[in-house]
């Protein structure tokens, strides 16, 4: 019942699984490059689901329809849409790669946990408060001012 073993059912199952794997990877992985790869998979799954919405079993491309007006054809609209979203996806992945490159050059690591704690530290020091989770009392900042 859950998967009806038509070709369409199997394709949908594959597409949904792919996007779930991508989402899972995005949530659990700590390496930012792997996170990007997971994002790519998530996008690929979503694109497959979108293009499947126009899929008809035994359907043919409308351009080959000819005089055969009543024949089953694949819906061309989702194919056009999916092309757009693939292009958008590629652009975003390239941008993410460029950012990853910059982050790696500055911090020397790809571990998200480390990068995140460093980011929080930087935000806190810029704001002039003790970084979250540290034992340093906020009064310490004031004392420095008094010494001067």
């Amino acid at each position: 019942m859950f998967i009806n073993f038509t070709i369409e059912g199997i394709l949908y199952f594959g597409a949904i699984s792919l996007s779930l794997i991508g989402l899972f990877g995005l949530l659990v992985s700590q390496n930012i490059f792997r996170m990007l790869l997971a994002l790519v998979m998530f996008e690929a799954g979503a694109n497959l689901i979108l293009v499947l919405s126009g899929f008809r079993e035994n359907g043919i491309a409308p351009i080959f329809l000819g005089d055969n007006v009543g024949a089953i054809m694949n819906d061309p609209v989702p194919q056009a849409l999916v092309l757009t979203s693939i292009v958008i996806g590629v652009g975003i992945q390239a941008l993410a790669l460029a950012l990853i490159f910059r982050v790696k050059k500055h911090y020397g690591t790809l571990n998200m946990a480390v990068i995140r704690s460093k980011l929080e530290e930087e935000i806190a020091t810029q704001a002039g408060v003790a970084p979250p989770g540290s034992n340093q009392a906020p009064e310490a900042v004031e004392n420095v001012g008094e010494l001067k």
Partner: protein
Amino acid sequence: MNNLILLVVLPLLSAFLIPVVAKYSSQLARMCGPVVLVFILVLIATSWDSIGVESFAIFLGGFLPSVGIVFYIDHFSLMLSALIALMLLVVWPWNDYVPARLYSLYMLLGAASFGLVLSADLFNLYVFYELLAVATYGLIAASPASKTNSSAAAVASLRYLFVSAAGSVMLLLGIAIIYTMTGTLNIAYLATMTDQLHGMAGLSAFALIAVGTGVKAEMFPVNSWVPEVYGTVSKPLVALLAGLISKLAVVLIIRVLLMMFQQPEALQLLLAVGILGVISGEMVAWRAKDVMRMLSFSSIAQLGLIFIAFSIAGKAGLWIGLALMLHHLLVKGGLFLLADKMNGSFESLRGFAKQSPMVVALFLVFILSLLGIPPFPGFWIKWLLIMTLAEQNGGLYHYAIGFILLATVIEAAYLFKLVRILFQSENTKPKVINNENKLIYRYAQIFALILIVSMAFISPISNRLKDMASQVANPQIYIHTILQSSTQTTQTTGEES
């Protein structure tokens, strides 16, 4: 009327021309954006009256709906377009030297925002949303708060990119589900077949769209990027992101909600995330020790309030939501602009009131309205929201009142804690303001002035918003405008309806 398409075309064109122009004259490249934005404002002003109660649709390239792309224009979308142009002019980087590509990114952001409020096609909305997202990633990475932490801005941008791109994929999934169910993506057509969209599949599509778009709208479970981004980028950009971009995402959600999913389950979902956003935002803001973090989380709470307002069915919820949106744009935008002068930890701001009384006075005006102290506009909006919530029957709505009041108490606690510190006079060390930007401060003053002046015009403004809301809340007008005009034109071209 068709010239309103220039709202999207001109910023897009200038975005790609600016880098070329900058090769010859950087002065010309800098002026290009403001000139386009002012021209757009004039365009909006001239077409405002001619639209009237009737709304208007533009069919791109003369292709009619179900095939072509449609832009839908009413007073609501025109007002939002005007706000976009004004906000972009406010945050336009005038005085400091900035690379030309930053101007391009701002214009790209403008084009995407105009497209987002005008488009009447789900897939177009997705494309403009992505364009908006890409422009914001670039802007965040390219405008750090200070020269020293440019890599922190890159990290914040990357972390934001992961959340936001996952959200975009969810939006795409929601759109794919809707297309599978109905076979169209034109919102007007979808509005005529709402009964097909009810049920689990439709609701999951709505949930995916709401959560996916909610990333930009600082919605409850997907707002981890807010403090990081707001803490690392320059204050005018924060004012733009918190004040305007978050609202545009909300506009996308309510367009979809009003036209296609006006059903109790979808509204309850929005109400639940709204309540959670209000409570979690205020709790974390209460624990904050510096101004930016406090304001970021308070902004999350305010957007939760907006979601609560939009979860009330019909016209009443819509116009309160609109009022809340405008109020938040004015107050939070103003506060973030003001934070350019008044940032850092609470401790470093001790006795700041004596040092610069005018800044603190403006701060007080903003936070009093934010809290809802009687003469300020914020009071009337919160009052109306609570009264309207009390009129609803259904358990969660009544709980929401309690949560809003509780949140207001917490908000008052942390804001007045800061005010008390500001007026203490124990500190002898004057706070050093490193990045002096006169213009930004001037804009903060103007925002406060608008807030104070609007106190006198509460009833005309609210009447205007009510008219606007009744126009927006009625799907019939939307369907009629897009499909009727298409049938009128098709009489000459063909048999398609």
